[in-house]
């Protein structure tokens, strides 16, 4: 099944639930007041989730400064070998 349909199925289920709630009688009044705005809340929540995930991802972004030192050593070793073999390793 195409991803757009899977995604649509999830969205469709949520919308169906919402419509079911809209049509159901005798809900507590406080709830039926916010009910029409639920989709807006959901969208805002999704946006916040996305931004939060990006922010969290940035905070825990895995870095490896040590690897760059190791790589520099490997580069020096390689350059020494290649120079000895007569390969041009000048960088302009």
């Amino acid at each position: 099944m195409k991803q757009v349909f899977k995604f649509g199925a999830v969205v469709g289920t949520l919308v169906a639930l919402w419509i079911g709630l809209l049509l159901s009688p005798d809900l507590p009044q406080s709830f039926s007041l916010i009910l029409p705005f639920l989709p807006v809340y959901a969208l805002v929540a999704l946006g916040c989730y996305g931004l939060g995930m990006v922010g969290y991802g940035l905070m825990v972004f895995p870095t490896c400064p040590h690897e760059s030192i190791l790589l520099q050593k490997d580069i020096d070793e390689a350059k020494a070998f290649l120079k000895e073999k007569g390969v041009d390793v000048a960088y302009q």
Partner: protein
Amino acid sequence: MEKDSSPPRRLYSILIPTYNERLNIALLCYLLFKTLNDLDVDFEVIIVDDASPDGTQDVIKQLQQIYGDHKILLRPRAAKLGLGTAYVHGLQHAAGDYIFIMDADLSHHPKYIPSFIRKQLDTNADIVTGTRYLKGGGVHGWDLRRKLTSRGANVLAHTLLWPHVSDLTGSFRLYRKPVLEELVKSCVSKGYVFQMEMIVRATRKGYYIAEVPISFVDRVYGTSKLGGAEIVQYLKGLFLLFFTT
């Protein structure tokens, strides 16, 4: 009586696209041979160079003198035709049953090759993909803008595509040859999106994908090409995959 119970030896083809990488390709070959000669596996290096004006091919010919032209195969093309088709081209010349794909710019360090091979043998995976975003992996040398772009792209892709792979745009991977051949045929995008398309289509086709952590040090020499155009291309690719896979 000769008794040989060991399985036939596997050949690994290592596919490397280059464009203006005269220094990097020399350094990379040294590190590749250093790692792989210790490992006792059969391998060949296939370099697809797109007529680099900086003399990359001259350096490759010198490397062939050192390591042998049966070990380093130069399969050049006449013009800069892009990454996606470079893989197709290289693949046509690959004799191996297993294909490594890696960049020439030393962001993909050959020292991880043994862990890819071990992972593949342990799990019998169709694809082993290097990930920067799991424990043991990491990135060095990106500024905040680059990190933000990467995280944003990742969150968007995971929300829309549910791919089960932590690092979609990494391109250091090991494939079974028939799997790569099939994927390359079904992929339509170019540039950055290509890597993502390959791995997303692979999950949809039900291939088993294993991950190994790698560290990624941004290129020391030469220039990369990530700009606004690539971001637009990425978003287009994302929607293409959303609707067609």
